[in-house]
C-alpha cells in the first residue's frame, strides 16, 4: 500500500514550492520580496531534510548565519502580515498579495521553529540529532516488533 506523505513534509513542500514560485514571479518587480523568499526556502528545505534524513549537526557559526538571515526574513514577513491585516478593509487583495500573505504565515512558523533550534545550538544545549518519528503507522510497527522480540 502506498504510504502518504507525512504531514510535516507535505506542509514544508507547499511552503517551499510557494516560496520558489513567488521568488520567480516577483524577481524583476520586487527584488526585495524575491530575496526574502529565497531566504525563506531555507527553513522549509531544512525541515524537509530533517524529516527525511535526520537533524544535521551544525556548528555555532552556521547557526549564527542562519539566525541573521532568518531574522531579516522574519521581520519582513511579520511586516507583510501586519500590513495586510491592518489594511484589510482597503486592500484589493490581489492573488499575489494573498499568496504572499499565506506564504508569510507559513514562513513565520517555520522560521520561528528554526530560530528555536538555532538558539539551542548557540546556547550550547545538547542537541538530539536523531529522532524516531512515531506516527500511527510506525508506532503500530514498533509495537509489533517488540512483541516479536519478546
Amino acid at each position, binding site marked *: 500500500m502506498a504510504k502518504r506523505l507525512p504531514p510535516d513534509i507535505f506542509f514544508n513542500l507547499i511552503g*517551499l514550492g510557494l516560496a520558489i514560485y513567488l521568488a520567480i514571479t516577483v524577481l524583476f518587480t*520586487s527584488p526585495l520580496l524575491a530575496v526574502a523568499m529565497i531566504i525563506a526556502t531555507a527553513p522549509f528545505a531544512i525541515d524537509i531534510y530533517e524529516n*527525511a534524513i535526520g537533524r544535521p549537526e551544525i556548528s555555532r557559526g552556521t547557526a549564527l548565519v542562519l539566525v541573521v538571515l532568518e531574522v531579516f526574513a522574519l521581520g519582513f514577513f511579520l511586516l507583510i502580515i501586519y*500590513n495586510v491585516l491592518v489594511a484589510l478593509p482597503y486592500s*484589493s487583495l490581489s492573488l499575489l498579495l494573498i499568496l504572499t500573505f499565506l506564504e508569510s504565515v507559513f514562513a513565520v512558523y517555520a522560521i520561528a521553529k528554526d530560530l528555536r533550534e538555532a538558539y539551542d545550538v548557540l546556547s550550547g544545549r545538547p542537541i538530539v540529532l536523531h529522532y*524516531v518519528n512515531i506516527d500511527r503507522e510506525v508506532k503500530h510497527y*514498533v509495537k509489533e516488533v*517488540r512483541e516479536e522480540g519478546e
Partner: protein
Amino acid sequence: MSRKYVRKANEEEQKHYVRPAEHPSFVRSVKGTGTSVKASTAEALAIAVVLGMFSLFFLGAAKVLMAPSASAYQVGFVAVPTGQPIPYKVIQSWAFGNVTIAEVELPPGPLPKGVFVPQSMMVYLAPWSMGTGTGPYATWYATDQYLTVMHYNPMWNGSGVTVAVIDTGIDYLMPNFAPGKHLILLVSVLYKNSSNGEPIVWNLQQNDNLTALYNFDYKLFKEYGHWAFLDTAGHGTATSSIIVAQPGLGVIQGLAPGANLIMIKAFFDNGTSTLSYVLTALQWVYNNTAKYNIKVLSLSWGAILPPGNPLNTAIEQIESKGVIVVAAAGNLGNIPGDVSYPAASPGVIAVSGFDCYTGQVANFSSIGPTLNLFEVKPQFTACAVNVPVLFPPYIGFAGEVRDPYDPNVTALSGTSFAAPAVAAVIADWLEYYHFYHGVWPTQAQLMALLISNAQHLSYPNDLTGYGIPLAPP
C-alpha cells in the same frame, strides 16, 4: 518536524530503528516492518524535484544577476566627492554640489567595487493604463474627485510656491495652465544649449508669445525629430493639470492653482527615458533650486533599481537643499516591496494609488515595504483610478474615453496621477505654514503637518501609508 509526533527514541526503539545511512531508502523505516519501497521512492522523487527546481532557479537567478559583466565592456555609474579623479573613462558627469555622479565606461572583467551597473538604462513613466473608463460614463468619472476627497480649500492654493515636474512636457497651448503667470518655465533636457551645454529653457514670464514658442518648438521637431517642450505623449499635461489647472476654464481644476509650475521635459513620446536624461533633469533642478525658489519636485515615473543607484544619490542631494520630493510608488501591482526608485529613496514622499470610487487600494499600485523596513512606504495614498485630467486634444490612444463636453478632458489611471495630487496639497501646506510662521517648514515639520491632518484609513502601513493627505483647513 512537529513536536507532536517527535520524541527521542528510547533504547528499545533504537534497536529497531534503521538510520538513514544504513538503509537504501532514506525515509524513516523500522526494521522488519516492510515499509513500501515504492512509497519511499515517491517521496524521494518529490523532494528531489522541488530541490532541483530550487537549484535551477538559483542558478538562473545568479546568471541573470551577473549578466552585465558578460559584455566586452559595460557602462556603469560612480558617485565620488567632487574634485576627486575618476579612474575610468568618463562618458558624462553630473555635479550635485559636493558629489559628482559619472557615467563611465568600465574595462572588461569583474565589476569594480563601488560601481553601479544598471540592468537597464531605461526609466519608465508610471501610467497603469490610459483611459480605462469602462461601463456607463457617469459611473467612472467625477470631475471634482480629488478636490472633494482631499478637502480642497480655495483659500490655500499654493501661492508663492514653485513646483517642478519632470515628465513628458506640457501642452502649453492650453490656457488652463496660465502660461506666463503660473506655468512659468519650460525646460528640455532632450536638447542642449550649444553655448553652455545646459538644457534649453523657455522662460514664459519673460516671453509669453506662444506662437513664437510653438514655431521654435516646431522647428526643432522638423530638424531633429523631437518636440523640445510640447507634450506629445499626454502624460506631463495630465500630471500638471492635477497641480495647477486654473479654475473657471472647464471642469478640471488643480489642487494648487496658485502655485508656479516648471515643466522639465525628460521623456520621449513612448513614455521612456534613460538614467542619463533623468540625471540631467535632476541636476538642472539642483542647480536652479534657489534661482526659481523650487520647493516641491513631483516625479511620476520610476525604475526598479538596487539601492545605491545614482537616482538615489541625486535625490538625496536635491533634498539637502530643502526641496520636498514626491514620487509615484509605481504600477507593478500589490506585491510587497515593489516600490520603484526614486519613490523608494529614503526621504522621498512615495504615493500609492487609491480607488476613490470603491475606497480600496488600486490593484495596480505598488506597495511597500522597502529595504528600510522601519520606514512607512508609501507614506500616503491618493486617487489613482479614472482620475479626470487635462489631456492634449491632438493625441489619441486606444480605449480613450473623452468628456463629450470638453475634448481636452479624459480620465486616466495610475499612481502617476496620485503623486501630483499629493505634491499640490504639499504646496498648499507650504503656503499655509509660510503665512502663519513667516518661514518655510523643514521636511520633518511638513511631514508632521501632513500626517496629523491626513485622513487615516488605518494604522500606518505599507499599502496606504498614513492615509490620504488633506489640504489645509
